[in-house]
């Protein structure tokens, strides 16, 4: 790792993280992600962009020790430097068929829900069906250490911010089955904010909702980062960091400080959002940006930018550049040699032979 100050003080540092699951029928390992190294500094929002199946959700869950299947994490190390908590360090080795996620889950148990929060995908199934929304919110706030007198105030604030208390009857007394999909989605995000965490992992919080509501949700995330939404924080604690997982690269501009681009279980590029378009990018990022920025209108349909081919199957990921098959710049070297992601002191880097 680089001797940069920000990296040393990082809230979370992952080094060479790899995870897989063994498929008995195929007799092979299915790789979720391989050799992923990154860090998240305090008060930093990092975006994780990738298409479905690239392993971004698994990476997010593994940071919370929630990767259940089979071997899970088998290589690399994770270290957390959370406020008011002991420094936590975990390292993983390939040690046969033992339950590898176990120590991480046990070690993280005291800080989960207090210092590390999660906004899950699939809102309806992620809520407890036997408890009212109010109870779930209250419990979450109490667990996160919110003082008892503050709980009703914060609840009221969260519910009204998410337009969950505007009707005659507040949603706090309802059970999850009585909510519409959109309401459940907002409850899920409110629960994530209620934890008041140092690190919030938000897994696709804008997927599956209409664009005006996406805009509102994005606005809530900005407010949470500023500290105007959610439980009160002690002055000694830094503002929350976030890992914002999404497949829409265009959402990154206003919210995130840095963006990590993930493809086929590997990080292809890390860059500062402010330098978007001002530095050499990975061809995949370029393509994504091209699609996001394409001109509208019917005239453009024929020249619509596309990425041909499909993502490699993660049973036997290529030992060369994972994007070589779909890349227009690919040459012989790309198909033989794997490019390294070298992160510079500013926390940026590209894993590509052609672009540095």
């Amino acid at each position, binding site marked *: 790792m680089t001797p940069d100050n920000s990296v040393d003080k990082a809230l979370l540092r992952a080094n060479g993280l790899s995870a897989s699951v063994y498929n008995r029928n195929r007799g092979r390992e299915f790789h979720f992600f391989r050799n992923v190294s990154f860090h998240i500094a305090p008060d930093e929002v990092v975006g994780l962009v990738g298409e479905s199946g690239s392993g971004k959700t698994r990476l997010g869950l593994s940071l919370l020790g929630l990767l259940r299947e089979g071997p899970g994490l088998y290589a690399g190390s994770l270290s957390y430097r959370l406020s008011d908590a002991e420094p936590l360090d975990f390292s993983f080795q390939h040690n046969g068929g033992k339950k590898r996620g176990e120590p991480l889950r046990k070690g993280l148990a005291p800080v989960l829900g207090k210092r590390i929060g999660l906004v899950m995908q699939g809102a309806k199934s992620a809520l407890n069906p036997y408890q009212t929304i109010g109870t779930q919110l209250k419990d979450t706030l109490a667990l996160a250490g919110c003082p008892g007198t503050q709980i009703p105030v914060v609840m009221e604030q969260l519910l009204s911010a998410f*337009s969950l208390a505007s009707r005659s009857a507040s949603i706090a007394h309802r059970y999850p089955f009585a909510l519409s999909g959109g309401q459940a989605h907002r409850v899920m995000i409110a629960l994530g904010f209620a934890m008041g965490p140092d690190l919030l992992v938000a897994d696709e919080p804008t997927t599956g909702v209409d664009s005006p509501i996406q805009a509102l949700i994005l606005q809530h995330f900005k407010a949470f980062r500023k500290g105007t939404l959610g439980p009160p924080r002690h002055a000694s604690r830094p503002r929350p960091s976030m890992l914002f997982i999404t497949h829409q690269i265009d959402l990154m501009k206003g919210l995130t400080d840095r963006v990590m681009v993930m493809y086929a279980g590997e990080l292809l590029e890390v860059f500062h959002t402010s330098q978007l378009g001002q530095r050499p990018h990975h061809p995949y990022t370029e393509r994504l940006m091209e699609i996001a920025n394409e001109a509208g209108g019917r005239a453009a349909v024929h020249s619509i930018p596309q990425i041909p081919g499909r993502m490699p199957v993660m049973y036997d990921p290529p030992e060369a550049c994972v994007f070589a098959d779909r890349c227009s710049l690919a040459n012989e070297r790309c198909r033989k040699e794997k490019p390294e992601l070298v992160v510079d002191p500013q926390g940026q880097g590209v894993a590509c032979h052609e672009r540095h």
Partner: protein
Amino acid sequence: MKDDHGQGFVIDRLTVDFTPSRLLDQLKRLRNKDHGVVRALHELCLAIAPGKAVGLLGESGCGKSTLARQIMGLLKERDPESRITFEGQDLDKVLDTDEQAFRNSVQMIFQHPDTFLNPKLMARDMVMEAFHIRGESKADIQAGRFHEELGKALDVLGLTWEDLEKTSDQLSGGEKKRMSILRVILAKPRYIIADEPFSGLDVSYRNRILKQFEILKEAGVGFLLISHDFHVTKKFCDEICVMYKGRIVHRYENPESGVPEVQHPYTQVLIVSNDYLARCHEALPEIMGKFKPEMGEKDWRTAGCPFEDRCFYSDNTELKDACRTKTPPEQRVMGSHVLRCHLFEAKEQQP
């Protein structure tokens, strides 16, 4: 729709009510009230012509999927006043006399592939159904006469032959979606009703499918593209209808640039929010100041505009009363735009 050309779908004043349960139905009969009856569609007019694409914009819960089911004849209960005609004939009559021919020519892409593919069947079996429906003989299918066609379609959609050998619960959400699109494309229909075909798909696949749709459209396939994504509809559709609470509030010919000259307040919200997501300014656009995440209780049966509670312009003193008490009439503005909003009424009166 006055011009009754013999081709395509013509939907005239389609009104659909839903009763939440049988119990409520009985209560309603007893008390003679329409308490609890949800109006899904309200006097909706629409036409789908071959070789043209109609885009239907609206948020979830505004009746888009109900409309698609009505067009497909999967949902037959509707107001007696409403009429749906398919190629000059009443849809009910078409379904009674020659359902098979109708199904051969009209196909639908469903929104949620998770529940719309049989989880226990192999993808191969379900894809091969497309050839069967097209009227190809079993011998031809088994002899592999369509392998080349299938291979090309698979390649366009980013699927492999191995994916065909999986049952649909072994496929990922995106793969299922593409599998159901593959099925519809292979069935070679004359009309495609696409209900949110791009939700849950990655941008790279989205653009490839959009291009495939464009090719089909040029070959004369009529499209109804139901979506909540303004970005997609403006690229593909010839006509765009913006729907709110089961009624079309703004219909216009899609200009080449994709941005309509006249905008209904709701259309404006949709366009501006898309722009906001792409540019990500610091503050929410002003027009979304009153916009709440949920639709209000009010619908088109009561007087007044249902969008009033979320509308930026409804606080305007001149309009306040009109918005609350008068249902906005349909008006034609700047040639191709048909709107339902008091804002434009006021504008027309002023000069």
